[in-house]
């Protein structure tokens, strides 16, 4: 079984540039999470989806960040106008619904973003 894949693995931008991150979850996993992990911090949830629906995006900076999962499979996270404060690793994780029971999340390798 293939794991969660993410691309690109690294990105370096100037402030004001746009960037997109792509995530392919494990096949059959209906829930997909995007996290931002600044250096020496824990992952912070940005947004998560159940199938194609956004369940919670309250931590997503809505003026510059957007996330979609149009067919309930792959997902794209986009930063419209990057700032130096966006420098972080962006992690994607997926899980399979277990009818209300806790379901383990499987993480991708992450995308390391540096904004100069």
């Amino acid at each position, binding site marked *: 079984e293939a794991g969660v894949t993410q691309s690109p693995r690294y990105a370096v931008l100037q402030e004001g540039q746009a960037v997109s991150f792509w995530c392919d979850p494990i096949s059959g996993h209906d*829930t997909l*999470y995007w*996290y931002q992990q600044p250096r*020496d*911090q*824990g*992952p*912070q*949830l940005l947004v*998560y989806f*159940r199938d194609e629906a956004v*369940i*919670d995006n309250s931590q997503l900076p809505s003026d510059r960040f957007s996330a979609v999962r149009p067919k309930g499979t792959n997902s794209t996270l986009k930063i419209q106008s990057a700032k130096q404060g966006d420098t972080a*690793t962006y*992690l994607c*994780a997926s899980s399979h*619904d277990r*009818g*209300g029971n*806790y*379901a*383990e*999340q*499987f*993480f991708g*390798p*992450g995308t*390391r973003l540096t904004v100069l």
Partner: protein
Amino acid sequence: AQRVTQVQPTGSSQWGEEVTLDCSYETSEYFYCIIWYRQLFSGEMVFLIYQTSFDTQNQRNGRYSVVFQKSLKSISLVISASQPEDSGTYFCALSEPHSGGNYKPTFGKGTSLVVHP
């Protein structure tokens, strides 16, 4: 305010020693889960063990076990016979029920562990 607190930013041990990493959390949920992960130097996040608030016994997974003190909202990860390969950053995460049967996770800041040969 931090809802998941890992007070030890760093830790160290010698090969073969038992290591204990602490975590405390805040929640008003009746049912919740606490999950421990290790993040490798490559950035990969590896699942280690989890404990639910309904579990009456401390969970164990190989060399990993937890000491769960529900009334104190505290949980410790215990690594027996630590090895240099156990070095990395350990995260405690609180997962609480959320809209429509989903779970919303909150991570601590992590404890960076070095196991010396």
